[in-house]
């Protein structure tokens, strides 16, 4: 009996750990999407930011090892990480300049930057490695994994905390959790968070109150780029240890969906990102059974659409219930 419980718990822990791992890039990107959305600038370029960050991270870590052969090994991935964050933030900054300075439509410019990121990464990859598919010919590095010591024998908790192979979770998995907490706290409890939301909620009112709306939107988009880059770096230096063409594979758009799905709130957004991560894991598990791969690949997009519809339906019912309650209160008084 208890053995069954432990077995079931272990399976649940394996799935939970895998979900967290698959959701990490989406969590980062959706937090990025949330921050800029709350500042009044929808960031469609999340996909491109992730691509650029992953590419810059992988290439820098690989070339760091070639240029500084005497440096300690732990340095290369961290240099790559820094370069990835910088490059992704720079792309978001480009979006900010095009939108805020040059009057470009935010959505179209975002799509343009996604295409730019897709083209530039493949072009540079082909130039540097002679391969248009992936950087498999380069030796790049992964960011370290954190292992909880002394968990090897603990049944369920050990798998949850240290992953299936007891190798620990990548440091950026914890980074995503920390970023979630920080964004949730900063948006609610800091002056900056309040002002950022004010700039997004009602730009005229914020301007009238003397807030630097344009600067706040720059901050929102740059912060969005920084957070999203975390997801990109994880893709190239954690989830896998190389860069592939079109590596983000739609995660940026999923993250955008998570923002709307989560009702533009931090915890809701991250919950939606976890649902998307779970859909990926479920798809992979079903792929092991006899289900055709095509059907498996349909699951994440269908879950997204279903979730968008269900959330709207739920909001509508709640509004109707509130209205009914209000009427009842009026009648009884």
């Amino acid at each position, binding site marked *: 009996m208890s053995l069954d419980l432990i077995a079931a718990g272990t399976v649940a822990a394996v799935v939970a750990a895998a979900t967290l791992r698959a959701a990490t890039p989406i969590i980062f990107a959706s937090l990025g999407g949330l921050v800029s959305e709350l500042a009044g600038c929808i960031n*469609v370029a999340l996909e491109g930011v992730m691509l650029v960050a992953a590419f810059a991270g992988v290439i820098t870590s690989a070339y760091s090892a070639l240029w500084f052969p005497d440096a300690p090994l732990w340095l290369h991935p961290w240099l790559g990480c820094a370069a990835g964050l910088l490059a992704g933030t720079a792309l978001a900054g480009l979006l900010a300049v*095009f939108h805020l*300075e*040059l*009057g*470009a*439509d935010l*959505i*179209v*410019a975002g*799509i*343009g*930057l*996604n*295409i*730019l990121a*897709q*083209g*530039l990464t*493949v*072009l*540079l990859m*082909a*130039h540097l490695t002679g391969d*248009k598919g992936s950087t498999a010919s380069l030796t790049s590095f992964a960011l370290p994994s954190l292992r909880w010591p002394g968990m090897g024998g603990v049944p369920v908790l050990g798998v949850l905390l240290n992953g299936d192979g007891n190798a620990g979770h990548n440091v950026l998995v914890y980074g995503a959790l920390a970023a979630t907490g920080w964004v949730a706290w900063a948006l609610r409890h800091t002056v900056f968070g309040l002002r950022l939301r004010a700039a997004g909620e009602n730009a005229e009112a914020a301007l009238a109150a003397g807030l630097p709306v344009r600067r706040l939107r720059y901050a929102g988009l740059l912060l969005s780029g920084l957070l999203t880059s975390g997801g990109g770096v994880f893709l190239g230096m954690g989830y896998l240890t190389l860069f592939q063409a079109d590596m983000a594979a*739609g995660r940026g*758009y999923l993250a*955008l*969906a998570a923002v*709307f799905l989560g009702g533009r709130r931090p915890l809701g957004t991250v919950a939606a990102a976890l649902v998307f991560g779970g859909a990926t894991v479920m798809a992979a598990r079903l792929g092991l059974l006899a289900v*055709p791969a*095509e*059907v498996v*690949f*349909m699951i*994440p*997009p*269908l879950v*997204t*659409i279903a979730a*968008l*519809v269900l959330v*709207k*339906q739920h909001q509508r019912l709640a509004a109707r219930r509130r209205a009914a309650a209000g009427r009842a209160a009026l009648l009884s008084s």
Partner: protein
Amino acid sequence: MTPSREGARIALAVGAALALGFAVMACVSDHPWAAFRALLTGPLPSIERAADGRMVVHRLVRFGAWLQDATTLTLVGLAIAIPFRARQFSLGADGQLFMGALAAAAVSLGLGDTPTALPLAFLAAAAAGAGWGLVAGLLKTRFEANEIVTTLMLNVVAVQVYRLVVGRVLNDPTAGFITTPPLPEAATLAPLIARTTVTAMVLVAPAAVAAALFLLRRTTLGYEIDLAGANPWFAVRAGVPVARATALAFALSGAFAGLAGFHVSNALLKRLPVDLTPGIGLEGIVVALLARGRVGALPLAALGYAYLRVGAQAMERATDVPREVVLVIQALIILFVVSDRLAPLALGLMRRVRTNLGGRAA
């Protein structure tokens, strides 16, 4: 802005994007000039005098590729431009194209070598694309689901449905690779120009543009779509069925993308491989942008952009520059065209520099 100034602005944006693209090519190539020349002259046929004095036309294949690519691009451009009139960013042309191609192939194979196969396949493609577009439209109007997200998700679903059906239902086991059997002769279009894939569809595309123009300018639905985009609040107050017009704009756009699918299946490939590359639908964005939302300008924009795309293929074959450089140029065109304040800023800067220089000289 007047059309001529608008045209000049777009020419400036394209020129700047090409210049920057050349800078990128110079960084990654050993022979940037040869690559640039291949890019810019690739689609043109060359006429040479043969030894016996007759004129021989070379490279007609690429010229044909230019025209047929422009046909596809015009249709997917329509698929982007029509919802845009209702201020909707539909990115679903890709999925609608796949659904259209699939429906056209299925109907052609089902009916076989009969004279009705061609018109019915044509209609099936339009209907399938319209249905797929209507899904996104209804999701938007009924559930306020963000159309950028839903159309992109529906694209993924459509591509997988396509692969499922081609791989498991319509598969031709004798082909050696996963594909449908060749479509029956009666259901396919014969080339208008020998040795190319230019078919009657090259005339259907401008006809589709004319039909769309008529619909937008001369019918109630077109007026409603424009109103829904210009001021939805006012339109609702005035009793315009905004939700219906918006949903129908999506369906209409899907019908045109579906026709692009028909073009791919029954005119270009004449059988559908399982690994048909997605992405052509998104190219419609560039075409619609270059036309600045003016439906009548779509064929011209499509011709211009198809020229660049075919040139890129020629360049990739002739030189060491991968065709992805066109993605960069495409992205720069998008960014420069939508940046309304870029041209005045650049002109102002140039003027200031000139006056500074003049001041120093005086």
